[in-house]
C-alpha cells in the first residue's frame, strides 16, 4: 500500500462573517470595532465553520467527485487544497505536483496576445518555459485559435477566450488535478472536449479531484464520491451511490440559497431560484403550468449587463437558452452594491417529466462573461396526464414535450 496522493485529516476552516464592506479601515481595528488580525478563537459570534472535521484519503490515480449544494464547503475545500487560503485546523499532505483549474483564464491580460498569455498563464500555473514551448502546439490546436495566436486576447470572442484558458490549464503535466466546475462555460461541443481531456488525464494514472453540479459528468469521470453538507462529509462511497444519495436528499433543493459574495467580480449571480408562477419557491413543478427561473444579480460597481438563463437535463444536456435583452438598449443597469431579481418565465407545455437544472450567466455587451452559476435540480411532473404510463419505460421519453397538434391526413 503506497501513501495516498492526498490525505486530509480533521480539516476545518472558520470564516468571520463580514458586516458592511469587505475590508477594514485602520480606525475600525484601532477602536476594536472590526475583527482583529491576530486574534484567535476569541468569541464565536459572527463566525462560522465552512468546513469541519473533514477527513479522507485519495489514493494516487483515483478520481474523486465532490457533491454538495452551495455553501456546503466545496469551494472552501478546493481553495485550501490549492493553497489559496489556509485551514483553521487539521492538516493535509499532498504528494505530487498539483494543478488547479478553479477558474479558467486567471491571469490572462487583455493587452497581451494569445501566445504571450499562454506563456504567462503557464508560468502562473507553475509550468516551466520549456514545458510550455513543448506543449504549445497541442494547446493551440486544442483551443482552435491557430489564426489568432498573435492577436491581443481583448479582441477574442468569449468562446475563444475560454477555450484558450482551459487548453493551457489542461496541458499541465502534474500529478494531481483539481477541477472546479469549468465545464458550464463554452458550447456543448467544447464541454465534451474538456470532459474528454480530463478523462484522458485520469486515464494516465493521475489523480483527479472534480467538483460539479453536472451529475452525468461526475458519473462519467469519477470512481468515488464525497457528499458534503454544511461543511462535513455525510457520505463517502462509489460515485453512483453518492450521486443517488445527494439527489435523494433535501440538500439537492432547487433553490440552493445564496452563492457566496465575491467582490472581485463587477457583478455576480447571487442566487438561482426556480419558482411557481405565483412566485412560491418549490422543488417540483407541473409540466402543464410552466414555471419561473428567478436570478438574483448583485453589482459590486456600476455595470450594464444582460442575464442568460439555460435549462439543462440532469444529465447535462442543454435544452434551452434565453437572454434578458436582445439589444444593448434593453440591457439592465445596476449601481454598485445593489441587488436585483430578474425572472425568466418558462411557458407551459415545453418540457416533459424529468429532473432539470438551470444555469445563469451575467454578460456584458461585449465579449466575455462577468459571472455564471449553476442552480440546483428541480423536478417537473405531470399530475394530470397519463403520458408517463403510455408507451415504453419512463426513462425512454424525451426531454421536450411540446404541444404538438395531431391530425389525420388523407
Amino acid at each position: 500500500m503506497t501513501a495516498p496522493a492526498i490525505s486530509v485529516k480533521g480539516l476545518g476552516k472558520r470564516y468571520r462573517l463580514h458586516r458592511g464592506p469587505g475590508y477594514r479601515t485602520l480606525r475600525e481595528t484601532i477602536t476594536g470595532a472590526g475583527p482583529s488580525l491576530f486574534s484567535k478563537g476569541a468569541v464565536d459570534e459572527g463566525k462560522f465553520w465552512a468546513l469541519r472535521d473533514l477527513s479522507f484519503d485519495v489514493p494516487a490515480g483515483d478520481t474523486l467527485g465532490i457533491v454538495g449544494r452551495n455553501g456546503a464547503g466545496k469551494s472552501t475545500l478546493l481553495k485550501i487544497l490549492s493553497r489559496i487560503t489556509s485551514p483553521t485546523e487539521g492538516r493535509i499532505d499532498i504528494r505530487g505536483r498539483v494543478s488547479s483549474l478553479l477558474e479558467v483564464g486567471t491571469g490572462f491580460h487583455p493587452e497581451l496576445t494569445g501566445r504571450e498569455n499562454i506563456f504567462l498563464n503557464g508560468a502562473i500555473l507553475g509550468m516551466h518555459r520549456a514545458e510550455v514551448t513543448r506543449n504549445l502546439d497541442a494547446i493551440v490546436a486544442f483551443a482552435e485559435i491557430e489564426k489568432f495566436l498573435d492577436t491581443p486576447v481583448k479582441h477574442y470572442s468569449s468562446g475563444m477566450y475560454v477555450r484558450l484558458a482551459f487548453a493551457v490549464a489542461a496541458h499541465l503535466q502534474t500529478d494531481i488535478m483539481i477541477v472546479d466546475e469549468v465545464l458550464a462555460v463554452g458550447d456543448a461541443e467544447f464541454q465534451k472536449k474538456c470532459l474528454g481531456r480530463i478523462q484522458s488525464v485520469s486515464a494516465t494514472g493521475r489523480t483527479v479531484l472534480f467538483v460539479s453540479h453536472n451529475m452525468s459528468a461526475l458519473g462519467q469521470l469519477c470512481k468515488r464520491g464525497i457528499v458534503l453538507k454544511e461543511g462535513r462529509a455525510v457520505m463517502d462511497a462509489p460515485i453512483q451511490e453518492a450521486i443517488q444519495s445527494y439527489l435523494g436528499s433535501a440538500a439537492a433543493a432547487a433553490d440552493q440559497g445564496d452563492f457566496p459574495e465575491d467582490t472581485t467580480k463587477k457583478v455576480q449571480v447571487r442566487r438561482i431560484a426556480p419558482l411557481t408562477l405565483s412566485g412560491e419557491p418549490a422543488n417540483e413543478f407541473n409540466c402543464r403550468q410552466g414555471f419561473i427561473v428567478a436570478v438574483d444579480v448583485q453589482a459590486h460597481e456600476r455595470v450594464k449587463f444582460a442575464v442568460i438563463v439555460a435549462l439543462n437535463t440532469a444529465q447535462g444536456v442543454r435544452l434551452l437558452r434565453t437572454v434578458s435583452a436582445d439589444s444593448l438598449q434593453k440591457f439592465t443597469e445596476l449601481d454598485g452594491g445593489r441587488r436585483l431579481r430578474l425572472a425568466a418565465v418558462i411557458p407551459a407545455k415545453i418540457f416533459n417529466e424529468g429532473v432539470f437544472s438551470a444555469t445563469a450567466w451575467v454578460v456584458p455587451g461585449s465579449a466575455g462573461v462577468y459571472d455564471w452559476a449553476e442552480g440546483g435540480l428541480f423536478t417537473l411532473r405531470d399530475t394530470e396526464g397519463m403520458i408517463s404510463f403510455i408507451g415504453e419505460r419512463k426513462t425512454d421519453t424525451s426531454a421536450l414535450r411540446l404541444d404538438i397538434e395531431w391530425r389525420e391526413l388523407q
Partner: protein
Amino acid sequence: MSNTASASPETADVITIKPASGWIPLELSEVWRYRELLFFFIWRDIKVRYRQTIFGLAWAIIQPLLPTFIFSVFFGKLAHMPSEGAPYPLFVFAAMVPWQFFAYSVSESANSLVSNRNLITKIYFPRVLIPLSAVGTGFVDFLVGLGGIFAMMAIYHVAPTPSLLFIPVFVVLAAASAFGVGLWLAALNALYRDVRYTVPFLVQFWLFATPIVYSARIVPERWRAVYGLNPMTGVIEGFRWSILGVGQAPGTEIFSSAIAILVILVSGLYFFRRTESIIADVI
C-alpha cells in the same frame, strides 16, 4: 499527451497544508523555484505599461527629468542651494533616478496585492513575487535612467571616477529598501485600504526628508547617524557620491541606513508572510 514522465507520488515532495500560526518560515527556496513567474510578471508589467504611449521607455528618463528641471530652477538658480561642486541639475538628477526607482517601486508594491487580487483569490504562488516584481519593473526603468545620468554627465563634461565601482552596492541597497518598505505597505494595504491614500503623501514627504535637492552635509555631523535611519539617506548619498565622485565618501549615514534597511526588509518579510496566510480571505 506529452511523454514527459511526471514524478511518481512516492518520490515527489510532500506538501503539507496546516493552519498558519506563530513565526511562519519564509520559504525563500520556493520563491527561487518560481523565479520564472517573477520574470513573467516583470515582463508583463513593462510590456503593458508603455503600450499605447508615444514616448515609450523614454518616460523612464522624462519622469526624473521633470522634477529635476523644476528643482534646478527653484533651488539651484533662485535659492543657490550648494551642490558640492557639481552642476546643480546633475547633482539633483543623479539622486532623482534612484529616488524614482524607490518611489515607483514603493507605490506600485503598495497597490500590488489589491490590483492582483483576481490572481490571489484564484491560484497559488508565493505572494511575495507580486511586490518583488514591482521592484523588478522599477529596476528596468532605473537602468534606462542610469543611461540618462551618463548622458547628462557627458553634457556637463563630468568624468566618472573610480568610485563608480561602488554603484552596485548602492543599487542593491536601493532595491532592498524599496522591497522592504513595499512589503510593509502591500500587506498593510491589503488589510486597510487607508494605506492607498497615504502613500502619495508619504512619498512626497519622504522626498524632502532625503538628501535629493540638498546635500546631507547640511545636517550636523552628530545628527548624521540619526538622519541615516531614513534608509534612502544612505542610498542616495552613496549613489551620488559614486556617480559624481564629489565630496568625501559618506560613512556614518550609510552604516545606519544599511541597518535600517536590514531591519525593514526582514520584518517586512515576516509581516508579509503572516498576512499572506489570510490574504485571500480578506482582500
